[in-house]
């Protein structure tokens, strides 16, 4: 188990998440893609921490990433609820009001 191995797995997770975030139409599925990307960041940050500088306080960065993921999830659900309520469905293509 090396840093390269951890980073390779993280890169694969990140790419899969990026594919999902770019290709999916349902808002919740786009969120799942973003979550996978953050998942990869958590894994890579853990690998960097352990293999490069396992100082006592380096883990704080990981907690910040996890907090960012929580915020993303909560706001995503709120926006999806809002879209449903306005009858716009849950597809990203239908929520293009601001682009006009």
């Amino acid at each position, binding site marked *: 188990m090396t840093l390269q191995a951890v980073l390779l797995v993280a890169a694969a997770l990140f790419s899969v998440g990026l*594919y999902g975030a770019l290709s999916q139409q*349902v808002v919740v599925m786009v969120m799942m893609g973003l979550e996978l990307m953050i998942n990869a960041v958590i894994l890579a940050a*853990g690998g960097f921490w352990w293999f490069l500088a396992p100082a006592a306080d380096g883990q704080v960065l990981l907690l910040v990433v996890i907090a960012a993921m929580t915020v993303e999830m909560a706001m995503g659900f709120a926006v999806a609820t809002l879209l449903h309520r306005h009858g716009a469905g849950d597809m990203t293509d239908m929520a293009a009001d601001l682009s006009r």
Partner: protein
Amino acid sequence: MLEAIVFWTLGAVAVAAGAAVFKVDSMARATYALAVSFVAVGLALLLVDLHYVGLVTVLMMVMEMAIMAVYMVMFMGMNPALMPMSMVHGRRTALVVSVGTFLLLAAGALLVPWPSRRDAPPVDVTAALGEALMGSKMLVMITVSPVMLATIVAGIVLAAPRTRYDRFGDDLRGHPADDPQPGGVGRR
């Protein structure tokens, strides 16, 4: 050696489950696949002694996926486990971009001459994290807390069906309240 085997297994499970999220034909299965992916990453973090962070990742993601399941039952208006779905746009572009990203990141991971480890890990990793949060890195927690509070408020504002602005108008002066079902006992 054993550690490497466990890590590669967990990594393969994490990536395979992540790919399954966008492959399976129902949202319920996608949710479970995502949960499996997160659990695998959380367990991989345990391998590098990140006990607290790994455990928090596992616990949080299991709860989050439970919320997601409730959300789907609420809004999808169908049996989410049975409804096939393929809602994809720009599939070819997304594939090209993500494969390119993977090649770029993998090349970076393999080609960059990473420095060797600087200092030894603390004896009790979790206690060290607690002391950092309550000591030198307290500003991080002080910053994250209002962000979390703002998230709660913004989430409620976005998701609430009717707020006081719907009832009393934009300047909050429209008495009596404009309710679909007027309450009270007939007084104006």
